[in-house]
């Protein structure tokens, strides 16, 4: 620890801190543009100038100087930093003036207005008049993709965007061409960016040079209502903030959560918003003479009741989709229990993971933050860049730190970090079944959901467990057996036991022709249900599930209801309701409750709170919001004893087209455009 005097306050700080960080610890606010905690230090904006005694006799960029770089005074006095001296104030005002020499005065038409660092800092530290009469620099706007709009006159050359895409996103696409006043931020020949994290550039850009293309000119930040939510586009459960105006969801931003998404979210999480408005089911439908016709809720329930009457429980089934809140699955399972049917499943992908193997067998046990500790990572049957881009960025950061043994079995893709490619199929995993453990303290195995969503999934799971035990990834204080799910609802479904009961059918069997007479489909849009059964679809979008339905009960999308989502680590997260479902649509719990009444098996929950309380009483760990309740690693050891021979089919990632994995994303024009760009990445702006 080093002593340092900041604004007259003496404190002890780590010598490795930058002056900027030390000043923050002392409670002094330092304005900045280029410095960002999660990016390398560039030191090019000069906004963070402070006065230092025991350093060079001029204003010093505090972000680029470390405490240990300062010399003590002649008699050994600690170095002195002033953050509010006349010199500092003058220096800041000067820097501000220089930055504004070329910055256009277009705040009234700039989407950053109201949340612009330049605006705020000009108010706080700048002067009130301009001394420049010259023309401002004019810079051509660049095409850099479907998500980020550029207004390059506004760029202040902080290079945060360049550093983010190179360092965090790991796809070096943005750069600064030219030099000096003529420096311009662009992609190579204005190609569209390919990163799944590019939306974060908009948050990083301290001015309005990079703004969100979808939703441009739609809203001002101060007119939006902000609600804390949970992202359901992947199984990471990133913390998001949902901004709404009236009934409409305007945008989605990340919330800081060090344990999960830090301050990033994926493009799908951010820009799926327009999918919440289009293709929505806003009234019940009943199929009449082969066509879906609008109906009232009463008519819809009557149709279901007529169908359900006298059916044998074994002819009734339920499948839950990928975006359901845990409460809904708990309620639907309770309904199936009341009806006496064992046919229920939340694994529409045909996965063979099952809670009977123990909770540790389906969780990302090391936790996401555990990636930082890992010293060996093997990914099996997954493309984490597509399945969970933010998690992949964390693996990349760990890899950048060096000294990481990285391997991949399964699809070979550009993951933004280098790895040893070990093979495509189970036979490559088999090599590790009798492998001596590597000399590693925190080895990690990451299995993609796709590795188990195949007919031989159970044999793969057993083999995975054997590899895990022989590689020693499960040990005291460390469980390196990890499943990376793709569906936000999956772990919640497993936790409440939304899987076939004794003798019950699983999802693929229920979807077969003639298996059932009545199927409750709770938002499962990734499975084809054969003709035959009477399908009651509870969901939000006119997607595959709705097309096959005989009765459609319009539900609420994730931003339109409160609910618990358990992420791939097993971390229950609670989402508030930000908006309202459109038209006649209702929250899913209420639909299930009314449905249960209609078919004479009334659920005992009258409010969402009562439902949640019942769920938490039955599964206490779901009440520990935001905390991971560790699962017992013994489950993995037990699982290793199971046998079975996997086929030799190569592993495939569960996600084929990143932008189109769920009904909301498929309804989004923005995601469709991104998907088209992803298919033809070399497309040029002008062509």
């Amino acid at each position: 620890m080093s002593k340092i005097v900041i604004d007259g306050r003496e404190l002890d700080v780590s010598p490795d801190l930058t002056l900027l960080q030390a000043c923050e610890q002392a409670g002094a606010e330092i304005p900045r543009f280029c410095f960002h905690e999660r990016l390398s230090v560039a030191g090019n904006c000069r906004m963070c100038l402070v006065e230092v005694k025991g350093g060079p006799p001029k204003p010093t960029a505090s972000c680029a100087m470390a405490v240990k770089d300062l010399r003590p005074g002649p008699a050994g006095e600690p170095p002195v930093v002033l953050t509010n001296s006349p010199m500092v104030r003058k220096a800041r005002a000067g820097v501000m003036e220089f930055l504004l020499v070329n910055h256009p005065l277009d705040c009234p038409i700039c989407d950053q207005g109201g949340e612009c660092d330049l605006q705020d800092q000009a108010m706080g530290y700048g002067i009130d008049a301009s001394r420049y009469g010259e023309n401002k620099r004019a810079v051509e706007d660049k095409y850099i993709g479907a998500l980020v709009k550029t207004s390059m006159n506004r760029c202040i050359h902080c290079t945060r965007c360049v550093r983010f895409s190179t360092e965090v996103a790991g796809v070096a696409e943005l750069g600064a061409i030219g030099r000096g006043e003529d420096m311009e931020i662009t992609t190579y020949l204005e190609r569209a960016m390919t990163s799944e994290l590019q939306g974060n550039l908009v948050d990083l850009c301290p001015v309005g040079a990079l703004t969100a293309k979808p939703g441009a000119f739609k809203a001002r930040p101060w007119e939006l209502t902000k609600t804390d939510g949970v992202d359901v586009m992947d199984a990471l459960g990133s913390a998001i903030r949902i901004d709404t105006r009236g009934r409409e969801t305007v945008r989605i931003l990340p919330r800081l959560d060090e344990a999960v998404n830090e301050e990033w979210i994926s493009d799908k999480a951010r820009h799926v918003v327009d999918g919440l408005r289009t293709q929505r089911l806003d009234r019940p439908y009943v199929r009449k003479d082969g066509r879906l016709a609008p109906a009232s809720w009463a008519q819809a329930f009557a149709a279901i009741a007529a169908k359900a009457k006298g059916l044998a429980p074994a002819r009734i089934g339920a499948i839950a989709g990928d975006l359901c809140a845990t409460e809904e699955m708990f309620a639907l399972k309770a309904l199936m229990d009341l009806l006496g049917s064992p046919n229920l499943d939340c694994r529409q992908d045909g996965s063979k993971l099952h809670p009977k193997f123990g909770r540790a067998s389906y969780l990302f046990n090391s936790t996401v933050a555990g990636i930082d500790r890992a010293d060996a990572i093997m990914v099996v049957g997954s493309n984490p860049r597509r399945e969970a881009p933010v998690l992949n960025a964390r693996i990349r950061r760990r890899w950048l730190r060096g000294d990481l043994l990285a391997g991949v079995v399964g699809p070979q893709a550009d993951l933004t970090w280098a790895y040893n490619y070990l093979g495509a199929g189970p036979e490559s995993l088999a090599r590790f079944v009798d492998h001596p453990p590597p000399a590693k303290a925190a080895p990690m195995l990451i299995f993609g959901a796709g590795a188990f969503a195949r007919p031989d999934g159970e044999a793969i799971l057993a083999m995975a467990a054997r590899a895990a035990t022989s590689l020693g990834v499960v040990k005291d204080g460390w469980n390196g057996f990890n499943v990376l799910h793709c569906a936000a609802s999956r772990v919640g479904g497993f936790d409440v036991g939304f899987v076939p009961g004794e003798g019950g059918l699983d999802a693929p069997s229920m979807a077969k022709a003639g298996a059932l007479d009545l199927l409750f489909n709770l938002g499962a849009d990734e499975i084809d249900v054969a003709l035959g059964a009477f399908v009651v679809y509870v969901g939000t979008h006119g997607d595959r599930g709705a097309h096959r339905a005989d009765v459609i009960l319009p539900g609420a999308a994730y931003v339109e209801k409160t609910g618990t989502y358990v992420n791939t680590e097993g971390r229950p997260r609670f989402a508030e309701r930000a908006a309202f479902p459109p038209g006649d649509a209702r929250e899913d719990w209420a639909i299930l409750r009314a449905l249960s009444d209609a078919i004479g098996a009334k659920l005992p929950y009258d409010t969402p709170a009562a439902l949640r309380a019942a769920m938490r009483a039955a599964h206490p760990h779901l009440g520990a919001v935001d905390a991971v309740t560790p699962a017992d690693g013994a489950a993995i050891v037990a699982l290793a004893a199971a046998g079975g021979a996997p086929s030799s089919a190569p592993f495939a990632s569960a996600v084929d087209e990143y932008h189109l994995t769920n009904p909301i994303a498929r309804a989004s024009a923005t995601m469709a455009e991104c998907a088209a760009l992803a298919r033809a990445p070399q497309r040029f702006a002008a062509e």
Partner: protein
Amino acid sequence: MAVRRLAENQPESFAFTPENAAWCATQIAKYPSGRQASAVIPLLWRAQAQNAYWLPRAAIEAVAGMLAMPYIRVLEIATFYSMFNLAPVGRAHVQLCGTTPCMLRGANGLRSALVERIGPAGSTTPDGALSWVEVECLGACCNAPMVQINDDYYEDLTPASLGGLLDDLAAGRAVKKGSQTGRTSSEPEPGKGTTLTDPALYDGSRVGAWRKRFEEAEAKAAEAAAAAANDKAK
């Protein structure tokens, strides 16, 4: 410097000649593995030399491929340095220094001569012989004003001597490099000989001489203070 863009008309492809490729390999081998990107400037420069002194997009991509660098990183470098020409230039490509020392010694006159002879900055003569741009200080200020033509410096210029040079270059005649007034590198001009002739420069008496002025001033201030104190005492 103005905004720099790649030329509109681009050749389909670019490949180093075998000799140049071998030379590139020696440059790349200078750097430890994983640091090959360090060779980017020599490679770009060689590519430019091979391609009539300008750098096509295909060459930028070829160099990026050889060094395992993202295209944008190489484009950044090619657009940063004015020594890389991104569009075709004349066989004799003039870079005029317009920075202060050269400007004080007559660069503006050279500029007018170039505009008259070739056209505005950035243009090439119709026969493809000559082109010119203005650049910042090229580090030969002592022989200002100067220009760089292709790889060589031409110094101590006047509009007339520059005009003669351009005529010779356009006609393919041999020209004299360096100073055009006949001095060798940056020695004093012929006949001027040594300029620092004051012996005090060489006998050591100048060492610390600057201090005298301050000492005198201090003594004067002390005297004045003493006088003032005396006045008061009276």
